[in-house]
């Protein structure tokens, strides 16, 4: 249907977005690749003007052979997986609940989506200090009220704490998308099933969940992109201690704390590879779902 003219017009109109993103991707990527093959220690006086020494793959082998590498990959996957699991499961339940008739629906919705508007830095600070502080935090008061020993959250349940904070931030997003999807569900189909005496669980499993499939994939895709690069939540709360050092955070330590740009850049390349593995994996599913 599309004519030749509109095809070329389409190319022209795609161009700005594609060219900009290509530049945004390639320029830093090429610089990162370059740095990753050099000895670049700015605090020892290395700089581009003076010329960087080529060191081959030594940064790559050093980064991957460091004891911190595999645990950080594992932490990244657990954290992303944990947040996805919590937000999707609770998101589906919450979306179904909010779809029901109830008093004060508007206000309830506002309250539920509010965490999404809070800056990551602020929410990390609030959770760390006002909620999870083992002496003055609300949780510790609550625990003591019930006669329990307060939990030192960021020390004894560090990764869990960060998963909690991130889930709190992203649950509204999941709920919103899932809610829109549920609202588009044909209610007659559900009612018919109810008339036929299908139990609630079956109705959920065979009608609601398949209908939400697409929305769930999209929630997973978008959240994964954001969660892989989570930073403020870790920086503010544990600073990477107690097994909360994700790959992103490990790169941060190499670049900022150690000021070893070459090593950090090699880590950045690994992170891109990891992200793309996850992405290909996800896109296989989403790609299928986008057509369906």
């Amino acid at each position, binding site marked *: 249907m599309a004519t030749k003219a*509109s095809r070329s017009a389409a190319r022209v*109109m795609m161009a700005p977005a594609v060219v900009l993103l290509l530049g945004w991707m390639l320029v830093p990527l090429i610089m990162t690749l370059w740095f990753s093959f050099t000895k670049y220690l700015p605090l020892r006086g290395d700089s581009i003007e003076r010329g960087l020494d080529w060191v081959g793959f030594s940064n790559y082998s050093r980064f991957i052979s460091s004891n911190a590498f595999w645990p950080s990959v594992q932490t990244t996957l657990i954290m992303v997986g944990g947040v996805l699991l919590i937000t999707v499961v609770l998101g589906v339940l919450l979306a179904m609940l909010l779809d029901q008739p109830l008093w004060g629906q508007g206000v309830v*919705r506002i309250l539920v989506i509010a965490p999404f508007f809070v*800056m990551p830095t602020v929410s990390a600070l609030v959770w760390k200090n006002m909620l999870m502080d083992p002496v003055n935090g609300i949780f510790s008061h609550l625990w003591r009220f019930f006669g329990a020993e307060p939990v030192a959250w960021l020390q004894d349940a560090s990764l869990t704490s960060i998963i909690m904070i991130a889930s709190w931030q992203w649950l509204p997003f999941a709920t919103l998308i899932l809610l829109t999807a549920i609202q588009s569900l044909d209610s007659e189909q559900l009612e018919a099933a109810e008339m036929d005496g299908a139990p609630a669980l079956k109705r959920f499993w065979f009608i609601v969940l398949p209908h939400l499939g697409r929305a769930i994939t999209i929630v997973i895709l978008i959240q994964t992109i954001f969660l892989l690069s989570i930073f403020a939540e870790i920086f503010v709360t544990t600073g990477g201690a107690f097994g909360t050092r994700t790959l992103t955070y490990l790169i941060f330590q190499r670049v900022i704390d150690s000021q070893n740009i070459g090593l950090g850049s090699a880590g950045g390349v690994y992170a891109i590879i990891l992200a793309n593995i996850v992405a290909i994996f996800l896109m296989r599913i989403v790609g299928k779902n986008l057509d369906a």
Partner: protein
Amino acid sequence: MARAVTTNRKIITTAVAWTIALILFFPIFWTILTSFKTEAQAINDPPLFFNFDWTLENYAVVQERSDYMKFLWNSIIIAGGSTILGILIAIPAAWSMAFVPSVRTKDILLWMLSTKMLPAVGVLYPISLIFVEFNLLDTRLGLIVVLMLINLPIIVWMLYTYFREIPGEILEAARMDGATLRDEILYVLTPMAVPGIASTLLLNFILAWNEAFWTLNLTAANAAPLTAFIASYSSPEGLFFAKLSAASTMAIAPILILGWFSQKQLVRGLTFGAVK
């Protein structure tokens, strides 16, 4: 009888929904509440709920120390500017993808998303060096461009999904009537997609407002937005819960209010093509 059941059910649903909503909102509520306490009251044992002397002292202290309006204004310009610029670039791209799809459309879309996976900290040095080279450090323009590029894939994707829902025949008809491509996009397509564009605007404004890595690392005094404002209150010496709460409230209040007012648009429009 049936009516009684539904009322009962509504009561239960309402109770459960409100309980969950209040729990989810509690951290924000508590922050706002604490911002009106003195530092000593903020760490009182047991915690004080409403039975304290409300004070605006913390806000006064925060305002005296940092010029809130300057940070706020920078936040508005940077988040607003990057969103608008992004939309302007994304509309034509999304149009081509939605109405002149090729075999590679989906690949391009997914590739665009994958550019978001570059870990920011890994490219801190490259980007900083580029910013220094082009004198963009601590300018709003630099941040507008960076945040636009970061969010562009999301914007393109959202618009693409809205545009796809618009029947191509309508555009076809406009073309028959002699409308140019520009007219077609400006006067036919865009007005029809207004709800979608509105929710795209909102979501990206929120994302840009809350971005805290580049806005902190590429600014100093001139272009620093609210994310930098909060970094000066995060862990000072001494008691700081109340002042931190006041600063936090000031940082999130504008976006919270905006979000609340536009909640309907956001709920209606945030689909990412999840709904057929």
